[in-house]
């Protein structure tokens, strides 16, 4: 373990120990937060008992659906837009101001249109994620050297083949960044929506537990979301590091 890793670990461990100390000393009262060791114990019990597996599965399936649809639509849209300068110029202001739009404000409207099922939650996750993917794809494609595009033409590649074999592989690191963003936004969108109006899912269960002062359920579920999100992000970051190292960019 190198020094930086050691310090990173020390910061996280220090934060958890501080929380533990504050909880045990009563500075943070029991109703607000249970000590970290109790959260871990409840988490293990929850997993071993298989509680909320249905809810967890449903939320994760929706996150995955929102992520996958936003990613595919985003990469395809970004790739097509990159070839049409005028269309891109028209849409650029929308992309620049997109994250100023509170997508969650449209949730009631989506429920009216799509009903109380999973549709509105997936749509919110999709809408939050898709523009980040488009913008990151465009940025990646902007950096493809002209000589590679010329090489594609010399090799007789069609525009579609050029995208699939040259430009998109070249910007694979950007596409992994896009995947990280899309996953984070999909989590925020789906779990956040479940908090507000859904009748099931991890977000709903956390919200329900919160209303009922059920810390033994709420904190383990929050911990689970944290672990899942960090694990997925770390996996993508590792992949990104491997790609960059192979290309001599790290």
């Amino acid at each position: 373990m190198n020094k930086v890793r050691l310090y990173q670990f020390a910061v996280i461990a220090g934060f958890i120990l501080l929380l533990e100390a504050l909880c045990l000393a009563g500075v943070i009262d029991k109703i607000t937060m249970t000590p970290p060791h109790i959260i871990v114990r409840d988490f293990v019990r929850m997993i071993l008992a298989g509680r909320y597996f249905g809810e967890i599965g449903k939320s994760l399936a929706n996150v995955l659906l929102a992520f996958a649809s936003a990613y595919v639509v985003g990469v395809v849209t970004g790739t097509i837009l990159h070839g049409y300068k005028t269309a891109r110029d028209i849409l650029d202001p929308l992309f620049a101001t997109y994250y100023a739009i509170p997508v969650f404000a449209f949730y009631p409207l989506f429920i009216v249109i799509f009903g109380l099922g999973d549709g509105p939650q997936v749509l919110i996750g999709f809408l939050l994620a898709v523009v980040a993917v488009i913008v990151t794809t465009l940025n990646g494609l902007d950096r493809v050297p002209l000589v590679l595009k010329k090489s594609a033409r010399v090799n007789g590649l069609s525009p579609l083949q050029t995208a699939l074999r040259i430009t998109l592989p070249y910007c694979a690191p950007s596409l992994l960044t896009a995947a990280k963003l899309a996953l984070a936004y999909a989590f925020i969108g789906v779990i956040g929506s479940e908090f507000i109006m859904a009748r099931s899912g991890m977000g709903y269960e956390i919200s329900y537990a919160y209303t009922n002062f059920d810390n033994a359920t709420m904190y383990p579920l929050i911990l689970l979301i944290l672990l899942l999100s960090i694990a997925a992000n770390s996996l993508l970051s590792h992949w990104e590091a491997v790609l960059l190292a192979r290309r001599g960019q790290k």
Partner: protein
Amino acid sequence: MSAAQVTLRGVTKIFPAAAGGEPVRALGPIDIEIRRGEFFAVVGPSGCGKSTLLELIAGLTAPTQGEIEFEGRPIKENVPDGVGVVFQEDACFTWLNVRENVEFGLRQKNIGPEEKARRATAVIDMMGLRDFARSYPAQLSGGMRQRVCIARTIVAEPRLILLDEPFGALDQQTRLLMGDEMLRLWRETGATIFLITHALDEAAMLADRIVVMSARPGKAIDLVETGWPRDRDSRIVERESFGAITSRLWKTLREESMKTMGRASSGA
């Protein structure tokens, strides 16, 4: 051997005006005939349209006026089958290893996987890359990466190879060695080579014929026949006539370069 493979007749390239500016006449009118199987070089002052000339012959851009033919057929903004290009910039595909890079040159060819592998192996060996077949471009030196690009081009067995200052980014020693390699490849493949370079000694050492271009808009102002035997290498620089050829090139080019510099200083 001496039939014209590429013919340029009255070729002109004018780039449209940028915002607020005037159209730029980059090239021509220019008339050139490149013979089948020869090593043909073009030298000229910076900005004279050498690379534009190469892109026109490659079919990467279309002429504003005039005609270009490759083996009797007109070239119009499409890279003709049988033409390969090596660029000055590093065009290695960084996500593929050396073998995959080389095999990429055969992707569009209608040949079986075994034949592809055999041809890639032969070219990798020919370019001295055997020990690096599994390496990624990031692990190679600049000269090796350029070899990979050359291998990717010649594996498709082009009848005309266009080289756009391919050794421009390499050190002098590597340039000389790469020059030897190019001469060997030229002899072994039997392809025609069209080389763009700003290095007079490189042109004088490698080419059968050398065109000297004027300052922008580039026109052919001199055509030099070196008269070298086909079986030659970089030791040709020791010959007396090498100095005479280089001197002649420099004499013509010096005046043109002065024009460019004069233009630059008056414009500053």
